[in-house]
């Protein structure tokens, strides 16, 4: 029996009709495409009237297939699928034609665009006739959530979910949660003390009955899909019994081994071989750094074990891999600092008094290595002048083309702290000042009034080679003041490099493990850059905070909360729909060659030794179709993207080329039998 196809061409106001002759397309489709019984054009198909028209025609004209030629399927495919379903037609018997984004908006020639529109409509019509009814699949959503990363974004997501009553596993690589925010002294533009606003959140997360804190742990493996992920987490050995330790800190006090702290103190301070990264750490359970511990390196010492009042030290502890089931995953792994040594002309590590922004954060911090005194590398001399260089590694074609977003404001904050704590002069060398968020510009104005000096221009070099007596013993900046158009030199005591915010080194690796992708720079890709900033292309995996792109604290918190809200909605609903676009193998045809087995990235194809055939595990299949294209026996069918469907689409797209040679006769209906009216 022939199918009864309904074709609807949308004007989209003048968005489509302005370039494509939609009436002609509809008329042509009705007259020339086989099996078409209804062909209409309408002002706005997505309006309720447009949808009602489709629904009525399905009922009155007994349509068995529907084609809507309007905008991108990513926008309104769901709308019209729902309309079909409302009228009793299986939603997968509908096909959308992208006339707006792929035709009218990108072309200027009306005749050519109309011809192309006919090709696209013809392609969809040929395809839709071969489409098969499919039933969407529903899976239960496990109420637990995994949050990877215990910085401010991850904390926010974890606390919101836990407060809503759902269990959360919060995984953090470092011994304590808190992330970069724990290292800061003040936050811009309010100059809130960072620790004062962060520590309540940390202890909230640490004590929450619904949050399982897994610090000093890493995500090893993720399997499963939305609603039901199985996650393997490696709890690294702390060598301290989590249950016995009270966090009294005597072990840290008595440990004889001092180690330079490159992580939390950015190399400016010391910690012991058994340590918690900072006094407010959550949990307060220390870890033993085996690379530096005297007992682990030389077999002697055991002071910590001797002084521990609860016998919590366990030198035999092993890594433990635990497995948890979660319905959703939030990735909030944050950022790392640009390696300022890669710009040798700025002299970091070569010239003592060149600091990075993270080092300077620790210098300013009252709990830091200098107790908040801004002093030079010798630890006592207060600088008389400080130069802050912006955009070190950002907005630089050699390193990162993007703007790190937060450094201008951080530089202003540093300027304020220097002016407040010392008598030094502060110079800021900027390319452009970027202060776009709430109260940021006001903070910039405030610093202008406070007397910070702003110089527009990129510094070429920081050197200690003095040319003048006044430059003796100073760091000299060679720069061009682009507002004056002059090359200049400025001697200062201290230089702060505003290093770029970069993706974590293992961001791509973690992304692969969770099935999400990164941009070229290494930031996780969100589902839609504007309208879906926390979801990813993988259902059930969300991103929050700076791992998705450089951002400040308010934006990270907002994204963490947004991810939590999205997940709560899914948990409350209890079920999630999965597109039934999966592959299946016809066992009668399968020769058991196993070519497909290794192509599947999700291990969704298993081999039945007994029958000698491969089989697809539907629950694991994501529907990419690579195995379908590879099967030499055509035994694999990809639902909704089968070979015959795509072939029909190609045939339809080339209706005017097929038998007419090179398409010189555009506009004439093809004289072949397929194009004859029904």
């Amino acid at each position: 029996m022939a199918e009864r196809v309904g074709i609807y061409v949308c004007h989209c106001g003048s968005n489509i009709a302005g370039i494509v002759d939609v009436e002609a397309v509809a008329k042509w489709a009705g007259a020339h495409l086989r099996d078409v019984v209804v062909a209409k054009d309408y002002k706005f198909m997505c309006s309720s009237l447009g949808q009602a028209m489709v629904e009525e025609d399905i009922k009155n004209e007994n349509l068995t297939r529907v084609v809507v030629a309007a905008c991108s399927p990513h926008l309104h495919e769901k709308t019209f699928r729902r309309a079909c379903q409302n009228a009793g037609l299986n939603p997968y018997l509908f096909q959308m034609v992208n006339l707006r984004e792929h035709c009218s908006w990108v072309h200027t020639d009306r005749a050519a665009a109309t011809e192309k529109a006919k090709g696209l409509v013809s392609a969809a019509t040929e395809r839709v006739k071969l489409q098969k009814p499919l039933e969407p699949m529903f899976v239960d959503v496990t109420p637990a959530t995994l949050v990877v990363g215990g910085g401010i974004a991850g904390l926010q997501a974890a606390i919101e979910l836990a407060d809503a009553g759902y269990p959360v596993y919060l995984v953090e690589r470092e011994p304590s949660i808190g992330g970069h925010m724990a290292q800061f002294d003040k936050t811009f533009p309010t100059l809130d003390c960072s620790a004062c606003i962060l520590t309540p959140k940390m202890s909230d997360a640490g004590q929450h009955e619904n949050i399982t804190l897994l610090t000093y742990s890493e995500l090893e493996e993720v399997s499963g899909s939305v609603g039901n992920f199985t996650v393997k987490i490696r709890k690294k050995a702390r060598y301290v019994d989590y249950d016995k330790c009270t966090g009294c800190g005597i072990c840290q006090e008595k440990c004889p081994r001092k180690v330079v702290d490159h992580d939390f103190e950015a190399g400016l301070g010391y910690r012991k071989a058994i340590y918690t990264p900072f006094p407010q750490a959550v949990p307060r359970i220390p870890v033993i750094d085996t690379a530096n511990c005297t007992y682990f390196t030389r077999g002697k010492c055991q002071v910590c074990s001797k002084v521990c009042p609860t016998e919590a030290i366990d030198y035999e502890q092993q890594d433990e891999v635990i497995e948890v089931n979660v319905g959703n995953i939030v990735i909030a792994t944050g950022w790392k600092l640009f390696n300022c040594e890669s710009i040798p002309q700025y002299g970091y590590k070569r010239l003592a008094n060149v600091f990075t922004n993270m080092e300077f954060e620790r210098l300013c911090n009252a709990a830091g290595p200098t107790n908040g005194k801004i002093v030079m590398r010798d630890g006592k001399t207060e600088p008389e002048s400080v130069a802050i260089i912006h955009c070190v590694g950002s907005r630089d074609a050699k390193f990162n083309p993007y703007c790190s977003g937060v450094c201008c404001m951080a530089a202003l904050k540093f300027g304020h702290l220097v002016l407040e704590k010392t008598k030094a002069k502060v110079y800021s060398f900027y390319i452009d000042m970027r202060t776009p968020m709430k109260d940021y510009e006001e903070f910039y104005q405030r610093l202008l009034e406070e007397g910070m000096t702003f110089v527009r221009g990129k510094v070429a070099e920081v050197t200690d080679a003095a040319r003048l007596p006044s430059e003796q013993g100073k760091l000299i900046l060679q720069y061009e003041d682009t507002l004056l158009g002059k090359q200049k030199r400025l001697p200062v005591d201290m230089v702060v490099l505003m290093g770029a915010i970069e993706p974590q080194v293992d961001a791509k690796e973690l992304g692969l493990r969770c099935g999400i992708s990164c941009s070229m720079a290494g930031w996780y890709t969100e589902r839609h850059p504007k309208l879906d900033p926390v979801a990813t292309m993988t259902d059930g995996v969300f991103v929050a905070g700076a791992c998705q792109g450089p951002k400040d604290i308010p934006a990270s918190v907002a994204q963490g909360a947004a991810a939590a809200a999205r997940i709560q909605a899914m948990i409350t609903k209890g079920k999630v729909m999965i597109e039934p676009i999966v592959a299946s193998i016809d066992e009668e045809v399968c020769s058991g060659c196993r070519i497909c087995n290794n192509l599947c990235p999700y291990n969704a194809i298993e081999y039945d030794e007994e029958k000698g055939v491969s089989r697809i595990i539907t629950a694991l299949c994501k529907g990419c179709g690579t195995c379908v294209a590879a099967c030499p026996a055509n035994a694999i069918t990809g639902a909704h993207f089968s070979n015959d469907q795509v072939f029909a689409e190609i045939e339809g797209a080339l209706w005017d080329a097929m038998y007419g040679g090179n398409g010189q006769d555009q506009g004439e209906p093809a004289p072949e039998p397929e194009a004859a009216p029904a």
Partner: protein
Amino acid sequence: MPDETFEPKIVGFCCNWCSYRAADLAGTARIKYSPNVRIIRVMCSGRIDPAFVLKALALGADGVLLAGCHPGECHYIDQNYKAMRRYAMLKQTLAAMGVEPERVKLVWASAAEGQQLAEAVDALVADVKKVGPLKWPANWDENGHRLEALDAIEKEHQEAMEVSQ
């Protein structure tokens, strides 16, 4: 001599996640490109069976554009690498069949690269214009008309079947 009025027919295969969205973005950003390409959506560039390309050329397309996510950014982890491998093999097959290498091209476009996708379309159209029409369907046609040729083959086949019975 190249025919200046020649407007090539190009079929484009775009993956659902990156390149199709790049084409959407080109639309949203009103970036103009040649109307010669007709885009067919597949879930992944790994779904592109080389037979799709051959079919398109056989049905009268003058060129085919294949587009996927950038290597390392595939929505299905690494299936675009499989597309890349198949593309390399397909190029050899096409060369053996006498099809100019300019006609079939694999490009990468992330969902943010509408401009790049539009440029790739324009570049392919320009390349195909240079090499001229492919006219594969017409070339099959040994007796002056393809349908007759096909009929003849079918007739021959039926006769052969009759003899074998």
